């Protein structure tokens, strides 16, 4: 099967999955007793006001009808109006998406780099102190409550040492003059504003460390296991025996083959990071989607909740598709089917 028809087939399947996702979120958020009209109107509102609100929000319609209306709106790209911010949910999300995307992508990059490097090191130096150290760090990473790690980092580097900012995306004395992509790093570079670029980088350091900590360990453990398997194979011995430089054998011959199984996890990893972003964003007052999710869920802002879960599902399934395509790029033997 050609890569093109593979992508088309996967995307069609994706549509079905997303429709299912839509159905699940819709019914979960509508069957349950919580009443957004009541919540929005406040405790002192009269029954008439509540009734009017319910009508405005379309909550007086039968459930199935509400669902049909909602789906037809989503098909046109309209995710509804947020009950809380009173603005279009799509617009709210578009505004906040770049912040989360920037944070998660940088964290992903850092985590993959450190994870792969650490994994290779502990495989090459198996059972030596490097390996043990990484193993300990790895187990700690998967057991650490990320919110506490965040609190420690803020306490240490912001409160005590004052080296790094403790929250936000950029200092209040600098600002991004022109919003082109919404990614501050990119925008600052495009406009040549190096003060803003520096500030954006400084603001990224702590949240990225906190967010990638757990992920580094899971990538590291996987790369190590895959590397060990590959390093024990005959062609590696042959390569070493014929006098190739050890570094070349490890990074070119072995790593490329070890990365294939590791790639599977990278898709899952992106999802893990999106989840971790929920806590990281609320710790660091990061104005992204995850924080928006927390506040909309606190106020039972159904249109926003459904829009957010839908978007996160789209991003998540899309990442998995990208990973599947990457398989073929790294290993030409793999057929798309």
């Amino acid at each position, binding site marked *: 099967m050609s890569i093109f028809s593979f992508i088309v087939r996967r995307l069609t399947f994706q549509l079905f999955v997303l429709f299912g996702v839509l159905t699940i979120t819709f019914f979960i958020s509508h069957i349950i007793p919580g009443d957004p009209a009541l919540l929005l109107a406040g405790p002192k509102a009269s029954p008439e006001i509540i009734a009017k609100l319910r009508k405005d929000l379309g909550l007086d319609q039968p459930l199935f009808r509400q669902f049909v209306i909602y789906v037809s709106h989503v098909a046109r790209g309209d995710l509804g109006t947020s009950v809380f911010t009173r603005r279009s949910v799509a617009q709210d999300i578009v505004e906040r998406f770049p912040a989360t995307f920037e944070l998660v992508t940088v964290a992903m990059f850092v985590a993959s780099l450190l994870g792969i490097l650490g994994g290779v090191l502990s495989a090459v130096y198996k059972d030596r102190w490097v390996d043990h150290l990484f193993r300990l760090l790895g187990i700690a990473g998967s057991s*650490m409550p990320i919110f506490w790690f965040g609190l420690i980092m803020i306490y240490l580097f912001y409160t005590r040492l004052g080296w790094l900012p403790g929250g936000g995306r950029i200092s209040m004395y600098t600002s991004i003059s022109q919003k082109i992509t919404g990614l501050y790093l990119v925008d600052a570079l495009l406009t040549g504003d190096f003060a803003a670029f520096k500030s954006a980088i400084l603001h990224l350091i702590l949240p990225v460390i906190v967010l990638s900590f757990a992920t580094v360990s899971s990538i590291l453990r996987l790369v190590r296991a895959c590397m060990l398997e590959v390093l024990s194979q005959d062609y590696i011995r042959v390569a070493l025996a014929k006098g190739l430089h050890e570094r070349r054998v490890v990074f070119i011959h072995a790593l490329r083959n070890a990365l294939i199984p590791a790639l599977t996890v990278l898709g899952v990893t992106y999802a893990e990071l999106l989840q971790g972003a*929920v806590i990281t964003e609320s710790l660091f007052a990061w104005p992204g989607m995850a924080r928006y999710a927390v506040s909309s869920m606190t106020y039972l802002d159904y249109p926003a909740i459904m829009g957010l879960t839908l978007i996160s599902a789209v991003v998540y399934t899309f990442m998995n598709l990208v990973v599947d395509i990457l398989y073929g790029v790294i290993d030409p033997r793999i057929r798309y089917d």
Partner: protein
Amino acid sequence: MISTIPQLFKTFQWLVQRPLFLVGGATVVTISVIAVLAPIIAPYDPLKIDVIKRLQPPSLQHFMGTDHLGRDLFSRVIFGARISLMVGVTIAFTSSALGGALGLLAGYFGKWLDNIIMRICDMFFAFPPLILAMAIAASLGPSLQNTMLALVIVWWPRYARLARSQVLVLRELDYVQAAKASGAGHLRIMLKHVLPNAFSPILVQVTLDIGQAILMAASLGFLGFGAQPPTPEWGVIASEARIYMRDQWWYPTFPSVMILLTVLGFNLVGDGLRDVLDPRQRGRLSKS
């Protein structure tokens, strides 16, 4: 599977050579004991407010100091062990039972049943679990029960997939075919012949997941979608304590360290169990 006594002894011997597994096991046992004996160990009522004694540092009267309402932090953390263990165990067992049963059915009968169950799983896999759990817990109204319900809803599909993949292999094996040929019913084959052999990977997963479930429930508590104050749940305590990190570092630290230790314990035990029960995976996650 472990069946004979020499094998059991070998397993035991093998375990002793794995110090990390033993450390993990000891941690889990200790925390379980603390959880069971909480009312006896805790020196104070975890809910008793004494505002005059608020935010005291650790002392002989209050081993972990007091919180912002003057409650004894040690007692709260001790009772928190009860809640977290209960939450972790309930989530892991319920979702493994539910997902395991559905996966067994899907893998054994195949065809349309397999298709339906697996496509439903796919839909759940399309969400980042924590975000879906947050949405469910928030819509149901945040509470400890709803946290568990939400986490079971997002967790069972993993077990369905795991069990199904096991069953698909087992189903074709000769002894299962033989049982079928000698007239055993579907239920008998599933429960007596397939399930026991699909069991060990599921057990390993359950052990690892107890830790992860505790971590996730605590995260939900921290974000305000889980247990609610004044419940002495570790995530809730850490969340109430976060603003005191600057001057009373011990306050958020004690409940968080308890989470760390508990999850660490279950992770170490799960890793060790994986090595012993699933030799093919040996060396995957730990020293081979």
